[in-house]
């Protein structure tokens, strides 16, 4: 039986299996069709119906269930997550599991299209070490991402000493909804 305890392990393995079957486009299709539109359809329903209140409801429940170390902050126009200990990437790092080239892309792979459908865009950075931040705004809101500490104070993940890992790479998304709409830069 496939279990949920080590789900992130066989989920990550599946990305590479799909890539070998049908290339990166099949992996993107999987994130959108199987994860966004099927598995996580309850998230789409909540966010479409309630906006930021739905985001609080969805991520408050799911991240707690997964054992994440995170902080959420919101205004009337913006929802922000600071992820300090991603339970998903953390499981892979802890168990030295890396088959697909960039596991972290899967979040934007299903959340990006979901938010696009609901009329939201994403500013997001992840450091491939289990830390990331997200700011979600209405697509017609031109406000840029908040300065470090402005929305989440000392909980802002960008204030961590290890936010920019030596020899690591940072993936940066600006007002994006597509997992490939990113720039990658060296962290040091």
């Amino acid at each position, binding site marked *: *039986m496939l279990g*949920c*305890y080590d789900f992130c392990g066989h989920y990550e393995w599946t990305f590479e299996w799909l890539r070998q079957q049908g290339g990166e486009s099949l992996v993107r299709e999987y994130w959108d069709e199987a994860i966004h539109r*099927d*598995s996580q359809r309850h998230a789409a329903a909540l966010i479409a119906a309630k906006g930021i209140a739905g985001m609080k409801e969805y991520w408050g429940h799911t991240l707690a269930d997964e054992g994440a170390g995170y902080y959420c902050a919101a205004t009337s126009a913006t929802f922000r997550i600071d992820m300090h200990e991603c*339970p998903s990437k953390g499981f892979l790092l*802890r*168990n030295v599991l890396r088959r697909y080239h960039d596991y972290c892309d899967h979040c934007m792979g299903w959340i990006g299209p979901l938010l696009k459908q609901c009329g939201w865009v994403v500013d997001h950075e992840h450091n491939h070490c289990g830390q990331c931040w997200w700011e979600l705004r209405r697509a017609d809101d031109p406000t840029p991402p908040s300065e470090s500490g402005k929305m989440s104070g000392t909980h802002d993940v960008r204030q961590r000493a290890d936010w920019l890992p030596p020899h690591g790479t940072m993936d940066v998304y600006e007002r994006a909804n597509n997992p490939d709409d990113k720039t990658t830069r060296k962290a040091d």
Partner: protein
Amino acid sequence: MPSSAKPLPYTDTKLVGAADFYYAINATFRFVLKKSGIEGLRRYWTDLGAGYFAPVMVRWRTGGLPAVAAYWRAFFAAEPGAEVEVHQSSDVVTLDVKVCPAIKHLRAHGREIVPCFCQHCYFVGEAMVAPAGLTVRVEGGNGSCRQTFLRHHIVSAPQDLALIKEAAC
């Protein structure tokens, strides 16, 4: 305890998994079935059993049936809502799955379950045990089943897939 003696090859900080991940497992089967048909889905399960679960297979090859029993005891202890008895004798390990945690959660939340969902326990399991000289037989499904792990040479007939029930909400 040396790492090779641990029944599960992976560790986590939480005691049990997040049950909503069963949604993604079910959705993944539906996606692969739609894209590649039933043979493609069975190939995915077999590749997963032989690939991702290779560290489990290594434990079973060296530890035999006691390692199989230890794995499943630890496995189901970490699956929320599972009610499973694991019995071991000299020749056989039997999983008496009284409540399948995946079917229970999917059904409780009104998710449409891929009808062949329960076949994955055979195809993944068989790929995991074959290198250890073992085989698995599955009977039942759709919420409860019996899975029997035994030495390959004492089984004459292949798995009868008709003995695995279709799953339904």
